[in-house]
């Protein structure tokens, strides 16, 4: 892969929590404008790799080059990480995606408020904007978090297990949303997921994470390895 065309480059990356090394000798080149699933068993290190790529976890060794410019990346955490006790409306949660471009008080300008309205409508959240996170179904919660990640015009979006715990219809709706973002808005979308079958149709390549390694492979090869129990 040619250097300079990538949105993320990792060289000899090693990640660890204290003395426990999770991943090592990881070399990755991720091109912009596509959808790349990160697939592996629970505990394989997908979320750890995401944290490192986002800058939340310093590498133990090696280098990560984030080449998406100065904009903050979009991030969709696992929805169980959001505590439903918080009395915050859908509108306020989506508005949080605009905070990087707001001032100290995080007050929205007229243009930002209009963008917020447009995003809520685009994601079908306009009629739910007055509800709190606790009052939403799993699919709507996920849409809310994706809308928050997208509203700031981030060129790259990280989604950690975005369809975990959703029913088939909600899962389909969320995946359609991601395909639309990728195809029509040119976003780079990285998805961490533990099942390849759900995602192999979305992308010709996947990043297979397991056994302390991570590598980008054609979907077919990755599927073969997973069936052979190699990840």
């Amino acid at each position: 892969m040619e250097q300079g065309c990538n949105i993320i480059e990792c060289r000899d990356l090693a990640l660890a929590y204290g003395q426990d090394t999770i991943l090592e000798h990881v070399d990755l080149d991720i091109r912009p404008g596509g959808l790349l699933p990160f697939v592996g068993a629970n505990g394989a290190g997908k979320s750890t790799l995401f944290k490192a790529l986002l800058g939340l976890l310093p590498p133990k060794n090696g280098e990560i080059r984030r080449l998406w410019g100065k904009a903050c990346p979009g991030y969709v955490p696992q929805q169980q990480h959001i505590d439903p006790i918080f009395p915050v409306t859908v509108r306020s949660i989506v508005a949080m995606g605009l905070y990087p471009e707001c001032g100290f008080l995080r007050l929205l300008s007229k243009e930002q408020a209009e963008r917020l309205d447009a995003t809520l409508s685009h994601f079908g959240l306009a009629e739910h904007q007055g509800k709190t996170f606790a009052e939403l179904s799993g699919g709507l919660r996920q849409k809310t978090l994706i809308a928050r990640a997208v509203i700031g015009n981030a060129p790259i979006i990280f989604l950690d297990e975005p369809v975990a715990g959703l029913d088939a219809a909600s899962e389909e709706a969320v995946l359609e949303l991601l395909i639309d973002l990728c195809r029509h808005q040119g976003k780079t979308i990285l998805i961490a997921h533990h099942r390849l079958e759900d995602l192999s149709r979305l992308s010709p390549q996947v990043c297979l994470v397991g056994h302390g390694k991570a590598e980008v492979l054609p979907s077919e090869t990755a599927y073969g390895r997973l069936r052979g129990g190699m990840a």
Partner: protein
Amino acid sequence: MITSFFEVCREFPVAVLCGCLLAVTCGCFGVFVLMRRLGFISIALSECSACGIAAASLYGFSPLAGATAMTLLAVCALSTDWERLRIPRDSILGTVFVFASALSVLLVSRSGMGLLEVKALLYGDLLLASKHDLMQISLIHLPLLGLLLLCLRSLLFAFMDSAGARVAGISVRVLELAFFVALGMLISSAAKTAGSLLVFCYLVVPPATGLLLSRRLWAVMLLTVFCGVTATLIGLTASYHWDLAGNQCIIIVACVLLGVLPSIKALVVRMFH
């Protein structure tokens, strides 16, 4: 009873103002403490504050300085990422609480004070608040409340989704530390006047009522303030009317409001739907 209310306002205006101010400031901070699921930190820091006051009385320095030093020391200890060391945060809060409680008793037992003096020192009495106390609390609490309101949105994001907030460029660790230092200063400056138990009550009970009554942050904060101020006014009036301990009356009223108001809300909702 209404006559007693006006008499309390006339006879103890400083106590009424102090109580209302504490209900407002502690209530607003308490909403965030509860949302962070750290209610027990309030009693741990209150006890540290009482311990600092006891140390100050024994060694002859300012009670405010003693309370602030002990509380900030505890905040620093609690800001360590204990969960990474596989120790639940609750166990650390419990340890800080029992340590501070035991040390307070040991310190005052060395000071040669009588039981009533010790009780007044450690548990305070709002009715005895002086103009100096009111001035001191106003000077510390109002700027802290202003800071909380200024950082409200960032703090909410950081508490609700710390990883998401960090990705969005918010300094979550700095914001959290600043919040808990502010909370420590709030508690240490209030504990000498109002007592650790009442401060704990203001930080937990009205915010819990607010969270039960509404699902909108601003409404929760306004309802918290309303419940805290109402409990203060009714509690002080009841204390005057029946010659009871002021702090304890306020606490009982706040707890009754917590039990009654959500039931009234549920009844009203059922009637109109």
